[in-house]
């Protein structure tokens, strides 16, 4: 849950007035100071108010003797369990606590057995899985264990060409149905992708993987340094920045054509593209005038116009995905880089961070929060490191999500707003970076990749 609450614990015995007044004054003083730096509490989508739903995920029943059934079913079971465990809204019953039964159809389940201790499940996901004639046939059910009369919440049938990958995808789709039904109407993320930079030798290529780290595969083969992948809202195009003869330029890859498509070059360094939520515009940093500023062009690179105008680096823009009317970005106009927000016409510039070294903003899907990398005590010899923070935009209150795991950078929100993916390396070396994921309250951190993976970008859907 995502609600750290400050609890002032000042116990005072009976004392003369001045002695009681002093702590009160101190208290006031301290609380005044702490609102400036405070880790005040606020809620992200991870904490919806209700406590997590306790759900049991039965192993599916193998319904054919095809030799592929067992291995694919095991992949399916594991993927479904992990998807629900990772969703952030469930209390998943440990496999060791649940009944041994593997009901393959509604007639075979004894709900009382699942509702009773120790599994104590409120919901049960179960079903049958078979491979027949080279196709996966899967029937999945979600039953309410406390509703004896009308227990069925969900029934789904899947029929896909048999492969390891389809077994995973079927599990993702069924998990997303369950999450959508039980998670307050927010679509699940089990079918989403993460685009990232793969570091190998002297080159960096753009790679893609499923949200859970499976199916890691290259997208580009450019043989140079390509960074900052940003997937378009409709998953059709991938914008990034690549080092060519004239420095870094915005490049565009079509995931429909599976090849590079043209995007005009401009003078100077051009980097860190960001899609508007309607997919019609791309904001990026361009130094075609000699100073790096935020520019916006249409998705084909035409009609480029400058949004910022201030000496110093301006880089890493990101749209407010809810409204499309605001941009958060990083500016070095006052020295060390800070996070700012402004309208897409360049008006209403507002500084969000109050010091340190802040970079890599990512705007939450509901428009309320910014996640970013922040080193609050930056300076020679100073303690503290670069960690992931989330700030509530309306109040500028923030919380720290990572601690003591080495420098962290490039947070990116999942489309359901419940997860944040980021890059981190224990020793601070970029080549040693791994991609991690966590819930938006900083819990359930785990690695998605091995070393040499950087700059993750979560797809919009």
């Amino acid at each position, binding site marked *: 849950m995502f609600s750290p609450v400050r609890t002032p614990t000042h116990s005072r015995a009976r004392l003369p007035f001045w002695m009681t007044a002093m702590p009160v004054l101190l208290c006031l003083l301290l609380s005044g100071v702490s609102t400036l730096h405070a880790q005040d509490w606020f809620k992200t989508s991870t904490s919806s108010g209700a406590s997590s739903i306790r759900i049991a995920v039965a192993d599916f029943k193998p319904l054919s003797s095809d030799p592929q059934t067992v291995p694919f079913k095991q992949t399916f079971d594991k993927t479904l369990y992990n998807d629900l465990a990772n969703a952030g809204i469930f209390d998943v019953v440990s496999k060791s606590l649940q009944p041994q039964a593997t009901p393959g159809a509604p007639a075979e389940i004894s709900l009382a057995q699942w509702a009773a201790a120790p599994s104590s499940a409120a919901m049960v996901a179960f079903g049958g899985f078979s491979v027949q004639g080279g196709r996966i046939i899967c029937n999945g059910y979600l039953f309410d264990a406390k509703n004896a009369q009308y227990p069925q919440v969900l029934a789904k049938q899947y029929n896909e060409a048999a492969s390891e990958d389809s077994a995973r995808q079927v599990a993702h789709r069924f998990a997303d149905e369950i999450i959508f039904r039980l998670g307050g109407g927010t679509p699940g993320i089990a079918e989403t992708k993460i685009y990232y930079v793969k570091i190998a030798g002297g080159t960096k290529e753009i790679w893609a993987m499923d949200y859970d780290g499976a199916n890691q595969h290259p997208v580009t083969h450019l043989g140079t340094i390509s960074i900052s992948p940003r997937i378009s809202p409709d998953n059709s195009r991938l914008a990034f920045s690549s*080092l060519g003869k004239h420095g870094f330029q915005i490049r565009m890859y079509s995931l429909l054509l599976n090849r590079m498509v043209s995007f005009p070059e401009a003078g100077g360094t051009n980097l860190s593209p960001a899609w508007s939520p309607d997919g019609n515009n791309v904001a990026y*940093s361009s130094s075609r005038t*000699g100073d790096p500023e935020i520019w916006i062009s249409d998705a084909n690179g035409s009609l480029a116009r400058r949004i910022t105008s201030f000496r110093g*680096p301006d*880089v890493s823009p990101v749209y407010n995905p809810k409204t499309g009317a605001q941009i958060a970005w990083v500016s070095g106009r006052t020295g060390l*880089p800070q996070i700012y927000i402004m309208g897409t016409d360049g008006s209403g510039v507002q500084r969000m961070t109050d010091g340190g070294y802040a970079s890599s903003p990512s705007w939450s899907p509901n428009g309320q929060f910014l996640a970013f990398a922040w080193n609050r005590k930056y300076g020679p010899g100073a303690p503290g490191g670069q960690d992931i923070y989330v700030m509530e935009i309306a109040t500028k209150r923030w919380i720290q999500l990572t601690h003591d795991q080495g420098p962290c950078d490039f947070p990116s929100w999942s489309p359901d707003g419940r997860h944040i993916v980021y890059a981190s390396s224990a020793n*601070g070396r970029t080549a040693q970076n791994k991609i991690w994921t966590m819930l938006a309250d900083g819990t359930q951190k785990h690695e998605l990749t091995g070393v040499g993976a950087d700059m993750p970008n979560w797809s919009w859907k």
Partner: protein
Amino acid sequence: MNVTRTKINRAIVVAATIIAMGAVSGCHKKHSGINPNSLGPAETAAAPTATITADPTAIDVGQSVVLNWRTENATTVTIDGIGPVNANGTQTVSPSTSTNFHLTAKGDGGTAEANVRVTVRVPEAPTVPSNENGDMGSDEVFHQNVKDVFFDYDSYDLRPDAQTSISQAASYLAAHPAIKVVIGGYCDDRGSAEYNLALGENRANSARTALVNAGVAASRLRVISYGKEKQFCTEENESCWQQNRRAQFSLDR
């Protein structure tokens, strides 16, 4: 390539000189034919003549060359650097540098001169590049004269030591107008990769602006930011970080 071309040029010059000498002395003879003096009282003495040759005309350092000269009607014959010599003779010399052997023959009838040039090939001596033919010269000479400039942490302002490098670089570039320069902007490996690319752009542009202000044409300067993507030094300490925080000048070939 350039050295070979220079050698060929020099050989041509030597040949031309010899031909020219022949032509001049030929003219001289003709002139003597229509010399007004010859119309007056009969000449008491003939004009001297002189020729000098060298074999071979090009040597490596340490090798020797045979000079061979002939004069007529001369009373004193001298060769610069050798001194008075016989009217006709040969001598073996081993000059350490390319030398013009200048022979002067004086007689009652006047003075005659002759030249031969001996080219000495010095093995790959670093020579100041000649720029008349668009040659940018070697990277070594360039880096000796155009030094990288270094920056403070998260800064793209030129420091006083950088100003010195810039003025030195500007005067070198002014003297070598054929050189075009690419300025690379680099950062240490701390902080955001994207921000550092923008910062590197600002650093390279600071150096570019300083060179332009010092009189170097902007069209000769190209800027590329590498941010923290191309680390020069990969250790995690201040001396290494400092080496990475720089604007690096290279020949834009």
